[in-house]
């Protein structure tokens, strides 16, 4: 079994990270009744004997002593990280695995990337190496950050290059929160485009997410809960968006519900690697199956049923509805409509009491309404994990490599150009050492090239699928 390390950068990254760890603990507590430190838990947690001073004290087997998250927390302001370390999850984090500063990045990618990057490079390397040393077999880094700000965006992407150089064999999965249209950070287009270039070049896989979609999903859940339908009761033990039923009571904060969705995404993504099932899917299989060309590594995700993201006891709708919903544009975690765009590849990761026949029946049913690229007409990757999410019977995570990400990128570029044409706020960036206009033009070109790739694929959409002539052999 392999381990993963989560690197949470910036305010957004750390808040999401915090929700993730809370959910992860709860999931493992529910599944692991005997309190034995097993391989499933070890994928995200170390077992530490806190009586041993210094850095030793890692216990690899036996009873759970004290669990420490395999995480590195990075923020250039202290507020968020301090809050975490004083909150109910303080024992879960290793106080040595964090890097903070005081002044913050001022929503400036250049400050995050160039200034703090060079300032903290050594420390970052040291913390990463330490966390890697604690792993038996490190498979993956999960980076969580936002694109619109300064630290998450700038320092978060600086980190990618460091990881690529230092740990070339370890996968880099990036969960990126893209700025919505009504983002209040004026320079978010600059930050996002500059960050995109780094994602293009140094990430193995990116899961783009936007706040607006998360917000819409939460609204939908609340609508369901308040609609007064029969059986809409708060569940005592399930994975929650509120903190009811948890032993570590956390004050619910405004973004918590939305962050929990992202936390659930990461849990479901790794469930088949951590838990058993009749058709396992490891993390390295995600990249292998969903990334046909190195640059096209942006995956649109959707989680269904929605009520698994809440403590709600709504009578489960038919299993098949769960599959249908996964392809609806209302359930995607970014604003995208995969059904009306072109699929390059699609992965369905199912948890719970779902068998292969259910999976096949639904693939057969939904296939005709989806458009797949000509060279991958049967482009499905599937996995079945026996362990359902806490308090529910089953769930589905769909990951799509689909041209429906294109509009997000195009819009981002437009917002960028609006600012850039007027050179608005540019001086804040250019005054940073190492920054010049070339950085901006290169970043935009990189994005344009990516958009162009998607355009070319879209152009093949309505063409008839022709078989390429095969090799002919002499008999």
């Amino acid at each position, binding site marked *: 079994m392999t381990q993963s390390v989560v690197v949470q950068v910036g305010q957004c990254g750390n808040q999401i990270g915090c929700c993730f760890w809370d959910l992860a603990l709860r999931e493992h507590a529910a599944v692991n009744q005997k309190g034995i430190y097993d*391989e499933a838990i070890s994928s995200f947690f170390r077992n530490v004997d806190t009586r041993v001073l210094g850095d030793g004290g890692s216990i690899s087997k036996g009873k759970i002593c004290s669990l420490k998250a395999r995480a590195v927390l990075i923020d250039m302001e202290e507020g968020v990280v301090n809050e975490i370390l004083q909150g109910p999850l303080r024992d879960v984090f290793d106080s040595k695995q964090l890097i903070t500063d005081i002044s913050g990045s001022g929503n400036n990618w250049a400050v995050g990337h160039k200034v703090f990057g060079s300032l903290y490079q050594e420390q970052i390397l040291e913390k990463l190496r330490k966390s890697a040393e604690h792993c038996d077999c490190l498979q993956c880094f999960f980076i969580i950050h936002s694109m619109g700000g300064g630290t998450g965006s700038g320092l978060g992407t600086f980190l990618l290059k460091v990881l690529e150089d230092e740990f070339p064999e370890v996968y880099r999965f990036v969960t990126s929160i893209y700025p919505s249209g009504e983002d209040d950070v004026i320079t978010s287009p600059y930050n996002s485009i500059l960050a995109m270039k780094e994602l293009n070049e140094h990430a193995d896989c990116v899961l783009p997410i936007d706040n607006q979609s998360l917000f819409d999903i939460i609204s939908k859940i609340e609508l369901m809960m308040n609609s007064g339908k029969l059986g809409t009761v708060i569940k005592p033990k399930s994975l929650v968006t509120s903190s009811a039923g948890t032993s570590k009571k956390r004050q619910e904060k405004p973004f918590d519900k939305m962050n929990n969705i992202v936390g659930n995404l990461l849990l479901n993504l790794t469930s088949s690697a951590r838990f058993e099932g009749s058709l396992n899917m*490891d993390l*390295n299989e995600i990249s292998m199956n969903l990334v046909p060309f190195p640059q096209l590594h942006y995956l649109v995700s959707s989680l269904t049923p929605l009520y698994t993201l809440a403590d709600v006891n709504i009578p489960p709708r038919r299993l098949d509805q769960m599959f249908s919903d996964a392809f609806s544009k209302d359930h995607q975690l970014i604003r995208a409509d995969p059904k009306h765009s072109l699929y390059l590849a699609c992965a369905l990761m199912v948890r719970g009491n779902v068998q292969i*026949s*259910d999976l096949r029946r639904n693939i057969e049913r939904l296939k005709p309404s989806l458009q797949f690229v000509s060279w*991958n007409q*049967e482009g499905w990757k599937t996995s079945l994990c026996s362990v359902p999410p806490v308090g529910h019977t089953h769930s589905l995570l769909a990951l799509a490599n689909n041209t429906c990400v294109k509009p997000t990128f195009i819009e981002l570029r437009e917002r960028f150009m609006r600012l850039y044409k007027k050179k608005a706020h540019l001086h804040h960036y250019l005054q940073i050492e190492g920054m010049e206009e070339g950085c901006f033009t290169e970043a935009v070109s990189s994005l344009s090239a990516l958009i162009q790739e998607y355009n070319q694929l879209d152009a093949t959409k309505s063409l008839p699928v022709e*078989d390429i002539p*095969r*090799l002919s052999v002499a008999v």
Partner: protein
Amino acid sequence: MSIVTVQLGQCGNQIGFEVFDALFSDSHCPQKFCSKRENEAYQASCKERFFSEEENGVPVARAVLVDMEPKVINQTLSKAAHSGRWKYGQHSHFCQKQGSGNNWAYGYSVHGPRHEESIMNLIQKEVEKCDSLSGFFIVMSMAGGTGSGLGAFLTQNLQDQYSNSLKMNQIIWPYGTGEVIVQNYNSILTLSHLYRSSDALLVHENDAVHKICAKLMNIKQISFRDINQVLAHQLGSVFQPTYSGEGSFHYRRNPLGDLMEDLVPHPEFKMLGVRNIPQMSENSLAYSTFTWAGLLKHLRQMLISDAKMEEGIDWQVRPPLSGLPTLGKMPLTKEFHFNTSIANLVILRGKDVHSADLGAFKDPALYTSWLEPVTAFNVWKTQRAFSKYEKSAALVSNSQSLVKPLDMIVGKAWNMFASKAYLHQYTKFGIEEEDFLDGFALLEQVIASYRNL
């Protein structure tokens, strides 16, 4: 003689468990229609082939379990141990921490060489426990990374190191609509490599077995466990002991050797399929009776119309009239296509087995012209019934049956290859475009050879 089974990857290990379980269950199934002595001889033969014994009397499967990540092997070992009836050897497994990522190149080029020594040592230990070795039975899937890539690597190694022993690879053909996106690439690479180093490829298609579960077994929510159990039943009906010859009551010693001799007369043609009837849920079984004539009639029609199960058989398909030249190039779209065989082996188990009339299988029209039916057709028998079936008939055939699925896989893989999608994942580990092209060329050759029977 004994058979050493090598279970590779998730699929191989999950199936391997069901196979040993089926063999053991059948072996200990209470028998109504054969004598005690007969039954004991059968059990002893089964045991010699597939199980060795430990001090406390619990049979130990003659198997080596290999996987590049631990979850499945742990599950498999504990399932066997908990059954209390048989188990796997304590040290017969090899495991790593990180899987092959569905990447054939990783399984073949990285895991293979890296773990070659350890795995071959384990196999050697298992071989040493056998008084005499019939050969190896390697269970693997084509779609993933470990079973396929590492499986291909190991089979080659087995050929080098145990050149006098036979190797039969049990290959699982993935569902057509995908379990793994790069399954067609992995399949091409696996099949082309195995064709060079294996002695026979026994193929089971997930789609076909799935249909059996749905239509014949009436299972509503089909799980992989159901599929694997049907598969294990089919394999059991082939590999359990049978008399060594007409009129003999001794069980044959060398099942693998005999299988190869009967079914693979020419190295160009080594793709085998299994059909086994009857196959039904226990409830239905209670209300059914069978005659050998009925079973054999259905089996024959299944063969010539290329039906994979007993339902929906096309009775319109007939063999070409004898005397006329055979049909030549096989049209893929023609409806009433007739499935020509190179060789067939019928295995009959149960009551009154000697009264079965197999004349219809000896019709030369069923076979390609360059083999006489007397060579091309063989039958194995035993009076001892298999599992819960009073009479059961299995047909292992080397025929055109697998051309269509093979052609489909090659077609899909070729389309993907032409766009160069996913190739960077393979070249990363040393499998270049050339290797793909070699694979394509070999398989097109196999398709053409079978088509021209």
